[in-house]
C-alpha cells in the first residue's frame, strides 16, 4: 500500500507544504497546486455549510477508484491532506502522526514564521522516515 502525497494548507487556503512520496506521479505546475488547494478549501467550507447535520465538519474523506484523500483540520484551521492508494489503512492515524511531526519540527522551529511556506529540513527528514516506515 502506498501513500502518494501530502499537502498542508494554512487557514487562508494558502498551500504551505506539498510533497510527493512516490516517483512517477504526475507533477503539476506550482500554480495548479495553489488552485487545487484553494478549490479544496472552498469545497470543504461549502460542505460544512450545506450539511443537513448541524455543526458538522467539512470533507474528511474523499474516495475514488484510483486514490483516497483524507483531510484533517487542526483547531487553528490548518488542513493536512493525505493522498494515498484507495486501500491504504488508518490514514487518519497517519495524519495525526504527521500533525505531531509538524507541531514538533515546524512550530517549534524559531526560524519558521507561522502561516508561511514550510522550509524545515528536520521536518522533511522526519516525515520521509515516517512515511517510509508505514506498512
Amino acid at each position, binding site marked *: 500500500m502506498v501513500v502518494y502525497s501530502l499537502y498542508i494548507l494554512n487557514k487562508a487556503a494558502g498551500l504551505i507544504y506539498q510533497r510527493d512520496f512516490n516517483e512517477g506521479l504526475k507533477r503539476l505546475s506550482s500554480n495548479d497546486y495553489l488552485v487545487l488547494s484553494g478549490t479544496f478549501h472552498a469545497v470543504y467550507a461549502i460542505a460544512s455549510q450545506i450539511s443537513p447535520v448541524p455543526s458538522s465538519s467539512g470533507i474528511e474523506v474523499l474516495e475514488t477508484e484510483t486514490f483516497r484523500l483524507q483531510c484533517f483540520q487542526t483547531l487553528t484551521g490548518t488542513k493536512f491532506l493525505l493522498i494515498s492508494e484507495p486501500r491504504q489503512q488508518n490514514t487518519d492515524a497517519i495524519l495525526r502522526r504527521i500533525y505531531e511531526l509538524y507541531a*514538533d*519540527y515546524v512550530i*517549534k*522551529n*524559531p*526560524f*519558521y514564521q507561522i502561516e508561511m511556506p514550510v*522550509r*524545515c*529540513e*528536520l*521536518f522533511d*527528514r522526519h516525515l520521509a522516515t515516517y512515511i517510509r516506515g508505514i506498512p
Partner: protein
Amino acid sequence: MLQNRSSYPPQQSAVAPSLASSSEKSIPTSLTPSTLRTVATPRKVTIYDRNLNRRAPELSLAAFAFLFNEIVQYSQKNVKGIQEMETKLSEYGYHVGQRVLELTVIREIKSAKRETRVLGLLQFINTGIWKSIFGKPADALEKSKDQEDEYMIIDNDPIVNKYISVPREMSQLNCAAFQAGIVEAVMDGCQFPARVTAHSVPTDLFPLKTVFLVKLDPVVVERERYMR
C-alpha cells in the same frame, strides 16, 4: 531549576495585599517590616525555604523548546550578523552556566572537592553538568591533535537543537552557541578562562552533531604546565 526561580521575588506579592488591606486605616508612609506582618496572608515561601537537593521532576521538553524558541528569536533582533547572534546566545547561556555550576556541585559532589586540573574539570562538564541539565552525558571528550590548548566536547544530538532547522542562508549558525555559553561560564567560574564555540559537524547518522571547541586561555596552559 526553573521551578525554584518561580518563587522569587519573595516579598513583592506580600506587599500588594498589605496596601489593599490598609486602605481602610491610614495609608502607611513606608512599608516597614511591621506593616508587612499585620497582613493576614500566610507567610510567603521564599527560595530560602526550599531544599536545593530535591531534584526537580523532569521538565517538559516542549515547554523548553518554546522558551528557547523565543530566546533564539529575541537574539535575532538588532544583530548585524550570525557571529553577533551567536555571541548573544552564548551570553544568555553564560548566565545559566554560572548558576548550573554551583547547583550541580552542591547536588552531585558530596565530597566538597574543587576541580583544579583541566582534565578533571572537562570530565565534570562532560558528565556531571551535561547530565544535570540534559539528562545524559555528552558523547565524547577529545583533545585536539594539533593544538595543545584545545579540547572538544562532542554532543551527537544537542537537546537545544532538537527541533531547529536553520535556514540555508544562515547555515553557519548553530544555536547550540547557547550551550557553549554554559560551558564557558563553568570554565570561567572554576578559574579556567576559556573561549568556547559551537560548530556543526553533521553526519548521516547524526545530522545535528555539534562540537564544542574549548580553547584555553594561555594562563591556564601555563598553570597546567607548572602543576605537572
